[in-house]
């Protein structure tokens, strides 16, 4: 026993020595890199999931990789420090602290619920820029180093809806379904503005191509629950929905739609590989655009916009590839011209002449809720014949229930 003990102690001593030595020898390596690269910047990214979700966080990772490549061409070397699977709580504060402490000059928080924790760290590091994607407190927090960012995803939804509408119209024209059977089922996470804005834009896009379309929305009250999402899609198909779309994190609605013989359009990711016979197209935010802009601004010492919001016209919102085997004939051409019109502003997503609320045209709606009672009370959003979404702030605020969409829960 004593011999064993001695052996273990010797090993421990050796290990400790090695640890000490390696620390000394490794340090020069770490500091050498920035010198020969010219411009190097440390950037932090805090994610609620990891790339395995093939949805929300995966989409951020694509943005990260895209930005790295794009900036490399400009001679900028981005050194990413990424925190995966961070819950929306105290751990997020720690993650922000750690990244700021490690020397990141800008830190992106990818989930809505991260913001309050990010705001606890931001005042302590005035020289570090903090970004809360999809949230909105930077307008009111009185800190100059906090920012928000979102993209005009409703434009992408509108186009994806258009592709879906084309398909439904094709089914009607071929006599496969009757006009009144053109029903879309939508699996939504929560009844929040971001989701309402999304499915309304989607519905309006579908109706642009198929005037008789209606929609049923089922909320699952969870951002990511594969089983609930699948069940909701299944129930919607059983109620006669011919096409399913979603705003939640999993790909299970796509597979369910396929198994029930319905069509599908995706969000965040191209889901053609999971449901090749159902998935027509998808839409996603391309975070590359914002990441590049923000990182470059930090390097050049320029101000980052307090609230950033861009859309189709700048490539911040994109459609994923069309599934050419199953889309309605002629979709590609019509889609391209619609996209052009949207970019030019000839077609508006929330055109008040295209929808009604309880039978009436919408003439008045506030954008922002300033007193926290869930009822918007500031900034008139309806003018020039359009509800101006993402105009007063990047986070969506269209929370109105329009005619033609039935909420199941």
């Amino acid at each position, binding site marked *: *026993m*004593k*011999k*064993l*003990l001695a052996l*273990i102690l010797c*090993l*421990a001593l050796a*290990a400790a020595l*090695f*640890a000490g030595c*390696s*620390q000394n020898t*490794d340090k020069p390596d770490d500091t050498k890199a920035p010198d020969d690269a010219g411009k190097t910047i440390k950037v932090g990214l805090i994610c609620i999931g990891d790339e395995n979700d093939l949805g929300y966080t995966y989409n951020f990772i694509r943005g990260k990789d895209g930005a790295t490549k794009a900036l490399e061409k400009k001679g900028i070397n981005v050194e990413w*420090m*990424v*925190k*995966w*699977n961070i*819950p*929306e*709580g*105290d*751990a997020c*504060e*720690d*993650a922000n*602290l*750690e*990244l700021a*402490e*490690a020397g990141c000059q800008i830190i992106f928080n990818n989930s*809505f*619920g991260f913001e*309050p924790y990010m705001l*606890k760290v931001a005042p302590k590091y005035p020289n570090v820029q903090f970004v809360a994607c999809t949230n909105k407190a930077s307008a009111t927090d009185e800190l100059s180093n906090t920012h928000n960012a979102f993209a005009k995803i409703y434009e992408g939804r509108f186009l994806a809806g258009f592709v879906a509408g084309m398909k439904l119209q094709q089914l009607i024209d071929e006599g496969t379904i009757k006009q009144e059977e053109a029903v879309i089922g939508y699996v939504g996470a*929560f009844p*929040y503005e971001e989701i309402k804005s999304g499915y309304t834009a989607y519905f309006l896009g579908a109706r642009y191509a198929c005037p008789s379309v209606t929609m049923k929305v089922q909320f699952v*009250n969870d951002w990511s629950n594969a089983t609930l999402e699948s069940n909701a899609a299944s129930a919607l198909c059983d109620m006669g929905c011919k096409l399913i779309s979603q705003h939640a994190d999993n790909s299970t609605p796509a597979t369910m739609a396929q198994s029930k013989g319905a069509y599908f359009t995706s969000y965040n990711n191209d889901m053609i590989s999971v449901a090749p016979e159902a998935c027509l197209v998808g839409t996603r935010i391309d975070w590359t655009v914002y990441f590049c802009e923000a990182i470059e601004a930090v390097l050049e010492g320029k101000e980052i916009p307090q609230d950033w919001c861009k859309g189709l016209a700048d490539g911040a919102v994109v459609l994923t590839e069309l599934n050419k085997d199953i889309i309605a004939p002629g979709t590609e051409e019509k889609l391209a011209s619609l996209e052009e019109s949207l970019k030019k502003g000839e077609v508006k997503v929330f055109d008040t002449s295209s929808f009604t609320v309880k039978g009436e045209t919408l003439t008045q709606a506030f954008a922002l809720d300033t007193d*926290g009672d869930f009822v918007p009370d500031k900034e008139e959003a309806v003018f020039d014949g359009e509800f101006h979404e993402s105009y007063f702030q990047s986070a969506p605020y269209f929370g109105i229930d329009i005619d033609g969409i039935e909420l199941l829960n």
Partner: protein
Amino acid sequence: MDEKIKSPLIRLEKRSKSALHPAAAWGIRLGSILFALLLGCVAILLSGNNPIKAYATMINGAVGNKVYLQQTVKKAVPLLGCALAIAPCFKMRFWNIGAEGQITAGALAATFVARLLTGKLPSLPLLLLMALAAMLLGGVWGLIPGFFKARWNTNETLFTLMMNYIIIGVVAWLQAGPWEAQQGRIAQFDVSAQLPKVAVVHCGWIIVLALVLFIHVYMRYTKHGYEISVIGDSMRTAQYAGMNVGRIMMRTMFLSGAVSGLVGFIVCAGANHTLAKEIAGGVGFTSITVAWLSQLNAFAMVAISMMLGILTKGADTLQTMMNIPVAISDIITGLLLFCMLGSEFFINYHLILRRRGGKGGRAK
């Protein structure tokens, strides 16, 4: 002895209690840690990294500067508090795995008080009331399975586990319903309802250190503590000695739940400054390991919870600094815990190797 009788290659023999010198026992424990670190090297090597550099990064990331140390302490505080909470139950051989729910219950009660009385009371009485409410609800949440066990001898393991899901469900409902501030989250507490910081970390660390003393004295030097250990050794003996076993069980479960509830207060008023269904974050389960590794010794728990704090914080850093997947860090943590718990086996038993001649005898 007959030479032809085959003895197995390795035999186990239980050590008598006095056979092993305490120093040797600690040697075995230390050895097990080193053995685990060596195994961990394999995992790191497989991920294509330098293990020595990785370990250095871990240590540096956990205690290397004030900010890191502060985060490490913040991770260790609830672990320590909760290990202290479940120690009396485990001593009694009452398997309370409901600390997760008792923490959540405490946090819920504290949040309720904070929402009700913020602005109406100054900070100190408000915090005291929050802590009191947390202990009360946490205690009741522990008392319920205790009562059923005492009265109808229900299975406490399943009962306490199920109680976790109930309270977490209640919080989920509150945060998406009546208490919602924005998108399914409860608003951050006002500053008056937040625990003040002492030496950069919220003062929860002082509370749990005080708890260490309290639990130590309670378990070692009070009648209650004695009753608990008698029940743990033999329930029949306790009954024969005229102890009211059911009552002691309920009392101990209330105490355990109350301490867990206090931990809930610390995590919600000190760290999160709000309530969410993930507030306990697995602490209620991890602390079981802390309690076992410490042999239910309150002072040892300080060291063990700190060690786990260093491991988790170090693993975080490993991920950011060296891009080592967090799963590898989890493997290292798992190896360490496994080896440390396993070392108790070698402290209680010793191996007897077969001698070349075939005769069994003691090795070394």
